């Protein structure tokens, strides 16, 4: 089962390798990982999407907590949470496809952020499934390049990661 885990860590030298090394060393999966400074500039916040059965997920949570650099771990999966991912999609646009590409972007409330004679670059934000959706519709036109941020997550209401 897919899990989205937020990890608050010390914003210090080598902390990313501690987290990623933990996953690779113990054979856990990382589907995506995003990192940026947290509200408190001394901390970083990571959002990790991973998969595994209950036993593995329990180990992932415990092992993350065990790291000295980890302040807090929150497995959102069983919680009410919001998840967003950003993608930039460079799609080939033959003259006959240009109108259709714009319509698709419009339907998904995406934005065209760069235009060249042969391509559109589309920016889209949403849950990962929404990004999968637009990619599927654009694919027949010819995807030149796709970059996804991996999802970030935040709890609804009082539920949160801040210490």
């Amino acid at each position, binding site marked *: 089962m897919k899990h989205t885990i937020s990890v608050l860590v010390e914003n210090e030298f*080598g902390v990313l390798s501690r987290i990623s090394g933990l996953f690779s060393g113990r054979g856990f999966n990382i589907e995506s990982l995003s990192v940026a400074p947290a509200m408190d500039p001394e901390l970083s916040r990571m959002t990790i999407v991973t998969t595994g059965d209950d*036993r593995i997920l329990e180990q992932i949570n415990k092992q993350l*907590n*065990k*790291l000295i650099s980890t302040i807090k771990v929150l497995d959102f999966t069983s919680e009410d949470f919001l998840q967003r991912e950003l993608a930039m999609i460079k799609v080939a646009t033959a003259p006959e496809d240009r109108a259709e590409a714009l319509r698709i972007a419009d339907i998904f409330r995406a934005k065209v952020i760069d235009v060249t004679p042969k391509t559109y670059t589309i920016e889209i934000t949403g849950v990962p499934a929404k990004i999968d959706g637009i990619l599927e519709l654009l694919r027949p036109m010819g995807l030149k390049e796709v970059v996804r941020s991996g999802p970030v997550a935040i709890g609804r209401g009082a539920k949160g990661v801040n*210490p």
Partner: protein
Amino acid sequence: MSLTGSQILLESLKLEGVDTVFGYPGGAVINIYDDLYESSIEHVLTRHEQAAIHAADGYSRCTGKVGVAIATSGPGATNTVTGIATAYMDSIPMVIITGQVPTQLIGNDAFQEADMCGITRPCTKHNFLVKNVADLAKTIKEAFYIARTGRPGPVLIDLPKDVQVAITDFNYPDQVNLRGYKPTYSGNPRQIEKAAEMLLQAKRPVLYVGGGVNLAAADDELLKLAEQTKIPVTTTLMAMSAFPQRHPLALGMLGMHGTFYANMAVTECDLLIAVGSRFDDRVTGRIDSFAEKAKIIHVDIDPTSIRKNVEVDLPIVGDLKDVLGKMHGYLNQRVGLVEDMVESTEEWRATIDEWKERHPMTYRQTKSVIKPQYVIEKISELTEENAIITTEVGQHQMWTAQFFSFRHPKSFVTSGGLGTMGFGLPSALGAQMAYPDRQVIDISGDGSFQMNSQELATLVQYKLPVKIAILNNNYLGMVRQWQQMFFEKRYSQTVMELPIDFVKLAEAYGATGLQTSKVEEVEDVIKKALETPGPVLMNFNVSREENVLPMVPAGKAINEMVLAS
């Protein structure tokens, strides 16, 4: 007070109560060694950095204090890795200081540069690269705190050369504040009560005790609880000295080379109380049939140990001294119920006694050739189990666990988790530094001994009266045993073709060498070694193809043992 980085290091070590360090100098730690020249801290110069780590490890295992070792950058530092991994697997508190190239050269592939924080990340509890001398004192404070608290472990401090000479005001912090590190010491009282209730209901309970009992110094609480409830106790390799092995409740070791009765008791029990143990694969054998009739209580200070390998009915996270003490206290208020429980488990103990009689720990004694087990029994007897015993890894290590009747806490120093050959001699050196007046004996094999035999020089230089007993079969015996049992006796690369003259080797270093191939001389050789001052190496040419039994073949359940005939 303004001090240089290396002076801050040494002053901080003193404030942490460190009086002995093990190490090896080099270019990137030359400033530290310059300050050590006039320091009150005793430095022991080993002949290899790996040995320095094992020595600090042995020092820690028999004292409970944090072991400290120093090595230079690059090859000096990478030589420490096996030692650090050994300590990490057995949760031994250590602080390792490695030199590093100057900060402005880091990442430049400078001479003797190695990324030690990168290399040791998976085998340390934590590690630090100190880039600013102003952070040094705080870092050392944190390193010692992390090493010795919670589930202990090795912590590495990588110290660039320019930080060692930089000057700053020295203030050693008296407190540590690590937001992400707050180990749980006090066990949840509700859980402890529940555990005690489960214990009172049990008909066939067993205590399965691991190295955590040494680390928590909870041997006393364990003994009290066991005697109060008359629950039989089986110990892992790491815990052989945590419970007196001649005690009527002692079942000896369990697992791959465990006793028949320990493995049967675990297989048949209805309540398994795992205490500071981690269900290692060498203990459980086939995991789905391990203690399959039992409810399991698991007490451990490290939450990741719980439910890692097996499902647990009742987890308790906490310090063993605290949890076992509270459990004993709770039961003390229910004397009547405890008496009932002791009575209703009478039959269980009788069953175990029958198992003990049916298949005791044994070997076939001969007159013509020395049996390795016999040597170990004799050492046990002649030292009255007062010695600190270290081992290397292999057959001799298993025989020591099986045939030495440990009775003092922290008197057995052995590499359990990582299984590091070459551990015994340097760790004996460390133990002897900690206890100059106690007898320290390294029980060794001829293969393992040659992995760190250079430390004979250190023993002689520091006049450390360590005794070494090599059970010499001219084989890498444990691998040979597997080849015999599972690979049709194809002894691929396990025959040590060149017989070493270990007596001459000892003498070359200035130690005493003794040897025998005769059964009737074994006792005399041991006595003579114990009486001879200084380091003595005993070479026993033993029965070459003796096997360690019982043995649970890989992938089998622990009650499917190959037994000694």
